[in-house]
C-alpha cells in the first residue's frame, strides 16, 4: 500500500509538471509566466535550504550568502570581463560552492542557533562588501549586466521550470537513498550517528555542496533573468525570510512541499499586491496561520506522516 501510494504521488507530480509545461501554449499572459518564473527560482532556493535545515539539521539563516555569492560572481564576470552567460553561471555556482565549503567548518564546531548566527553574519559581510566595493558592484542600486538569458518570457519560464524539475529530481533521489538516511540521522543526533561508524563530516560537506550547487545555479540564473544583480533580490534578509517561509508553509523535509510553498508565496504576494504595503503583512499573517494550524505545512494535508 505504501508503494502504491508512492507511485500515485510520483504520478501526480509528473502530471503537475506536464500541465505546467503546457501553460505557455494556452496562455499568452507574460505576467503569469513572469510570476511563475520567479516562483520557480524561489522553489529551488527553498529546496536547497531544506536539504540543510530539514535533512542535515543545520540551522542556516543565510541561504542568501550562497545565492548572493553566485549572483554577484556571475554578474561581475559578465559585466567586467564580458564573458558569456554560459560561462558566468558555472563560475557563480563554483563561488557559491566555495562559500558553502567555508560554512562547513563553523557548522561542525557550533550547534543550532550559534551556527545560525554565523550564517547571518556571513550574509551581513557579503552585504557590506557589496556596499564597500560599490564602484564595481553598483552598491544598493545594483549591477547592470551586459547579457540576459533570453528575451522571451516563454524561454525564461522553461529555464526556471527546467532547473526546478532537475533540482527536485536530484534532491529527491538523494534524500530517498541510503545516503539521505545517513544525512537525516546525522542531522538528528550526530554523536549517535558517529557511533554507528559514519564519519559525519563527509555527509555534512556533501549536504552543503549540494545545497550550494542548486542555490548557486538558481542565484546566477536569477540575475541573468532580471538583467541586474541587486542586494534587494539576492542578498537581503527579506529574501531569506521568503525562503524560510516558503519551506515551512510547504512542509519541511519535503521536496514537493518546498515547491508548493514557494509558488503559493509568490502567487499570494501577487494577488495581494493591490493592498500595497499591507500585502507583506497579509502574507506573513497567512504564513503564521499555516504554521499554527498545520505546523508540518501544506504537504501534511496530503496525509503524509508528520515531520518531527
Amino acid at each position, binding site marked *: 500500500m505504501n508503494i502504491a501510494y508512492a507511485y500515485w504521488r510520483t504520478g501526480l507530480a509528473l502530471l503537475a509538471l506536464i500541465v505546467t509545461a503546457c501553460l505557455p501554449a494556452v496562455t499568452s499572459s507574460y505576467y503569469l509566466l513572469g510570476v511563475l518564473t520567479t516562483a520557480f527560482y524561489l522553489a529551488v532556493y527553498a529546496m536547497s535550504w531544506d536539504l540543510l535545515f530539514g535533512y542535515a539539521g543545520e540551522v542556516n539563516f543565510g541561504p542568501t550568502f550562497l545565492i548572493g555569492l553566485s549572483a554577484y560572481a556571475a554578474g561581475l564576470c559578465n559585466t567586467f570581463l564580458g564573458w558569456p552567460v554560459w560561462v558566468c553561471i558555472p563560475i557563480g555556482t563554483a563561488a557559491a560552492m566555495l562559500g558553502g565549503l567555508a560554512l562547513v567548518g563553523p557548522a561542525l564546531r557550533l550547534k543550532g542557533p550559534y551556527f545560525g548566527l554565523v550564517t547571518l553574519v556571513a550574509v551581513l559581510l557579503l552585504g557590506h562588501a557589496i556596499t564597500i566595493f560599490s564602484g564595481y558592484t553598483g552598491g544598493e542600486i545594483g549591477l547592470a549586466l551586459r547579457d540576459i538569458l533570453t528575451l522571451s518570457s516563454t524561454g525564461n519560464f522553461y529555464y526556471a521550470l527546467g532547473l526546478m524539475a532537475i533540482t527536485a529530481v536530484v534532491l529527491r533521489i538523494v534524500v530517498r537513498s541510503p545516503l539521505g538516511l545517513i544525512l537525516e540521522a546525522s542531522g538528528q543526533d550526530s*554523536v549517535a550517528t*558517529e557511533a*554507528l561508524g559514519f564519519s559525519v563530516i563527509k555527509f555534512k560537506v556533501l549536504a552543503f555542496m549540494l545545497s550550494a550547487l542548486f542555490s548557486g545555479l538558481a542565484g546566477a540564473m536569477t540575475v541573468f533573468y532580471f538583467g541586474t544583480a541587486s542586494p534587494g533580490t539576492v542578498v537581503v534578509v527579506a529574501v531569506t525570510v521568503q525562503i524560510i517561509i516558503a519551506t515551512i508553509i510547504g512542509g519541511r523535509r519535503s521536496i514537493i512541499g518546498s515547491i508548493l510553498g514557494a509558488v503559493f508565496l509568490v502567487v499570494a504576494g501577487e494577488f495581494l499586491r493591490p493592498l500595497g504595503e499591507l500585502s507583506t503583512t497579509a502574507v506573513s499573517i497567512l504564513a503564521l496561520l499555516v504554521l499554527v494550524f498545520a505546523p508540518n505545512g501544506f504537504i501534511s494535508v496530503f496525509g503524509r*506522516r508528520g515531520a518531527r
Partner: protein
Amino acid sequence: MAILEVAGLCKRFGGLQAVDEVSFAVESGEVLGLIGPNGSGKSTTLSLLMGVVRPDSGSVQLRDIEIAGQPTHAIAKRGMAMVFQHSRPLHRQTVLENIQLALLPDTIFQLCRAKQLVQRAREVADRVGLTAVLHQHPDALPFAFLRRLELAKALAADPAVLLLDEPFAGLAPRETREFSDLVVSLRGAGCAVVLVDHNVKAVAGLVDRIAAMHAGRKIAEGTPEQVTGNAHVREVYFGKSLDTTPQAPTARTEHDGRRLLETRIESVHYGQAEALRGVELHVDEGEFVSVVGLNGAGKTTLFDSILGFVGYRGDIQWRGNSLDGVKPAARASAGIALCPETRALFLHMSVRENLDLGGHALNRQARVEQRDQILKLFPVLAERASQSAYTLSGGEQQMLTIGRALMARPRLLLLDEPTLGLAPLIIEHISDALEQLQQDTGLAILLAEQNLTFAVKHSRRIYLLETGQLRWHGEADRFVAEVGADVL
C-alpha cells in the same frame, strides 16, 4: 589477551577530575558491570571508550590496537558499539529502516539500497525481538522497544565490544528481565559487554565481574559478591558508621500527628515510559521523611507531581484537601516549597535578591525578618549577601537554594538531593542547619536522596523507591537492617 584493555584512563573537566587513572580489561564473551553513585565517572568512562569524549591520557586497546583519541566513527569501525541512554531514532522512518541505517557502509556514493540490506536488517531485528513491529514508526512504540531498537542498531555491525549506558533505566521489572536475557544471549555470541548502572543489585544476575567507581576512581573489582563485601564500596554507599551499628537519629522532633501531605498517585507517565506507579506516602506536621532510591527511581517526578509540574493519575491531598486542578503557583503559596536538584538559582542576581524573590509574597517587614533568620541559619550567606549567586561555591549555592525556599515560610520543604556533588564537610553544615531548622520552626521536610547516610541520619521514616514503585517503608532505624543489603 583481553579484547578490550583500558589502562590509566584520565579525563578532567575544568576543576573536576571526572575519570582518574581507571584501568580494567574485558574478555570476549564476558559482561563487565561498571557501577558507582551519581557523578562517579562511569558514564564518562564509556564516552571515553567510544571516543565521544577525548581522554587526557591513558590507553584503550581494542584487539591490541590503540584507539584512545581516535574519532568516534573510527572506533566504531574497529568493532566498538554503544547504546546511549537517550535514544533518538529517526521518527519518519520505520523500525526496519532505522536498522538498515546501521547496516549502511560509510560512503557518500550510495544512491541505491543493496539487495541483502533488508534481509540482514530483518535478521538483526529478529535477534532482539523486534520482528513484530518492523513496519511501525518509533514514536508508536513502547519505550522498551525503543531500547531494543537502539540495541539492534548497535549489534548491526557485529561489534566485538558493546557498551551499554544504563540499559535498564526507565524499564519496568519485566522489561528489565527480558532485556537482561538479551544481553546474556550476546555473551554466547562472543561479544564483550561493558554496562553501566548504579548499583550491584541491578546487574548482579547478569555480569561476570563488577568494577565499582567513586569520584572518578576505580575502588573495587571482582565478582558481585566480592564487590558487595568490599569495605570501601560499603562506605561509599552507606557511610562509615551506619554499616556496623545503626546510629540513633539525632534530630527527630516529635510531630503532633496532623497530616500535612498525603499522596495516592496511581501513575505518572512521560510519553511511553511510566515514571511512577502506585506511590502512597504521607508526611505529618513537623515530620522529617525521606524518599530514597537510585537515579531514575522517580524521586524528582514525585516532587514534580506534588507541586503539580507534571500530570498524574490519582490524588494528592494537602492538609486534607485535594490538590486536584490546583496550579503549581497556588500549591506553593499554600505552603509547599521546593529545593530543586538543579538548584535553579537566579545566577546573575545577588544572594540577597535571590532570597527576596523567594519571599516576594511577604510584606516588607516580614521579608526582612525572614531574611535575617535565614542569614542567621547560614551565616556564610550573610557574608556573601551582595555577591552574585554564580560566584558561590556548590555548598553555598545549596544553602542559598534552601534559604530561598524558606523565605516563603513554607509548612513543608521538599528537598531534592541537597547533598549531590558536595564535600562531606559542607554536607555536615547543611545537616546541622536542617536540624536547627526543625527544632526552631517545626517545619516538615520531605527529602529525596541517594545519599543514604544523610537520609537515615535525619529521617523519622523512610520510603524506598525503586523503578517508580515503593518497595519498602518504615522507621529509619530499621532501614539498614531490613533493606540495606538490597540497595547496595
